[in-house]
């Protein structure tokens, strides 16, 4: 399966400031032919490059709303993370009304499924005696573990993404009840979730048909959300599951949000230093999914909204069939098993090349680090002459040489 990034490079007047190249944790970005190139095999959709670009040259979009026309009956799922960003239930109900007005036949709150999946995670973790579980709800963290922390793959909870479970349940409910083609859309709070749907990125293995970016529809929501309401019974557990500060406290559960904290936890887990925890509840975004990078405004206050959203009796956690929640070997590495000897030879050549480079990791060549440059040289894609520092030193030596002559 070819991996695709959700991030598009759009800016013609990009100044090649290299900020995005340098901030990328997986070295997926480089400058090729004077343009930013994003390697889908390396990109984990963390959106750090999008956030760092001052010129809005990098963006993420979901399917266009016109995709609704391709179906006879359409459902839009709204996760708890989006609802948690609004201060009152009335406001959430207004938002649901405005989303339906985009052209959907149904708007479904999936906070109940979000809650059920969180409860199931805690249940699995409690059953584990000798090992610990890492939550598998964040697509960025799943990709990061797969690519950079494969030692931890056996620890990932064998659960699906909540919206995928919800999509399967909705499809089962509608089967035989509505005529024609059913389209299930997911309204996404973060860029990485855009890849967990059949479209727009053609990841056909998923149950969800289309992913829609919250940022793409906010203008319409803002316009219509005071025009009407659709009753919503938000589930408290679901709302809690979308913000690390609201995850129920247990001494054995470690909660971490944000890239630096999450990688710190993963680094320690690799040394087996977190054995005293049975669960690591991880979110790549600050403030969890409620701090998703496709939402706008202040994510810090999302935790304050819980009480108001749950007053008048919150919704209950629904029963979810086991086979709707579980997934097998979702994340086993697909990479070809290359011979260790071959890999070691490559490593040796890269190290020898690296010694010839300047070693400043300046990114001026368009690649993030000298190691990446050395790898590219060994692969035959670049030459030592592409190193700006080496070239500058050479020019200087030639000049000095001339002077002496």
């Amino acid at each position: 399966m070819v991996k695709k990034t959700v991030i598009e490079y759009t800016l013609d007047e990009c100044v090649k400031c290299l900020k995005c190249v340098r901030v990328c944790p997986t070295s997926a970005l480089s400058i090729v032919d004077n343009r930013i190139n994003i390697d889908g095999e390396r990109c984990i959709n963390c959106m750090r490059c999008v956030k760092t670009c001052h010129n809005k040259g990098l963006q993420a979009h979901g399917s266009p709303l016109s995709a609704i026309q391709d179906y006879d009956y359409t459902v839009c799922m709204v996760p708890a993370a989006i609802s948690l960003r609004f201060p009152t239930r009335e406001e959430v109900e207004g938002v649901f009304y405005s989303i339906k007005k985009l052209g959907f036949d149904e708007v479904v709150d999936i906070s109940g499924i979000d809650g059920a999946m969180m409860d199931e995670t805690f249940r699995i973790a409690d059953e584990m005696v000798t090992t610990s579980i890492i939550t598998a709800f964040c697509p960025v963290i799943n990709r990061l573990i797969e690519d950079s922390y494969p030692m931890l793959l056996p620890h990932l909870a064998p659960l699906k993404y909540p919206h995928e479970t919800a999509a399967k349940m909705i499809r089962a409910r509608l089967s035989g009840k509505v005529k024609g083609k059913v389209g299930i859309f997911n309204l996404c709070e973060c860029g990485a979730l855009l890849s967990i749907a059949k479209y727009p990125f053609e990841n056909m293995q998923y149950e969800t048909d289309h992913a829609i970016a919250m940022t793409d529809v906010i203008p319409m929501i803002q316009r219509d959300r005071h025009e009407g309401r659709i009753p919503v019974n938000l589930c408290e557990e679901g709302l809690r599951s979308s913000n690390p500060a609201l995850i129920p406290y247990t001494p054995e559960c470690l909660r971490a949000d944000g890239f630096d904290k999450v990688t710190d936890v993963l680094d320690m887990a690799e040394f087996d230093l977190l054995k005293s925890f049975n669960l690591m509840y991880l979110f790549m975004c600050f403030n969890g999914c409620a701090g998703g990078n496709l939402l706008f405004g202040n994510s810090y206050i999302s935790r304050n909204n819980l009480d108001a959203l749950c007053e008048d009796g919150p919704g209950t956690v629904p029963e979810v069939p086991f086979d709707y929640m579980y997934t097998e070997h979702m994340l086993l590495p697909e990479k070809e098993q290359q011979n260790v000897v071959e890999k070691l030879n490559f490593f040796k050549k890269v190290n020898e090349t690296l010694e010839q480079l300047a070693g400043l990791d300046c990114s001026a060549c368009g690649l993030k680090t000298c190691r990446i440059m050395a790898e590219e040289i060994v692969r035959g894609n670049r030459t030592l002459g592409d190193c700006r520092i080496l070239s500058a030193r050479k020019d200087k030596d030639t000049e000095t040489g001339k002077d002496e002559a």
Partner: protein
Amino acid sequence: MAAILHEEYPVASDDYAGAGKVSSRIKELLKQMGFGPDVSRRAAIACYEAEINLIIHSDGGKVILEVSDEGVISLAFRDVGPGIPDLEKAMTPGFSTADEEARNLGFGAGMGLPNIKRVSDTFDIETSPDGTNLTLTFRGGI
């Protein structure tokens, strides 16, 4: 059997601030070299435990990493003393001589050497008042 890589890292006694730095570096190298998850994890866990042992118990020493072109990872931990007084006891799970300072920092649970032995493919230890030599190997080749 030629060495692809040979590196030595000094470890100072009581250097709690630097604890884990050598192990992190070695773990990173093993990933770059393309070793599989299982062998990398075992080597990383052993390396961390042994590095902490040098900091807590020894008068200082070094870690030597060697990787052969056949994919054998060798980790050697050499210190300059004071030696392990009772090796048999030290190999017993739960036995610890770590002081209050170390225990307060979450170290010294008495699982160090038993854990290291459990995860490594070969385990050799020699100790005298002049120093301890711990040599571990991990087989990562196919």
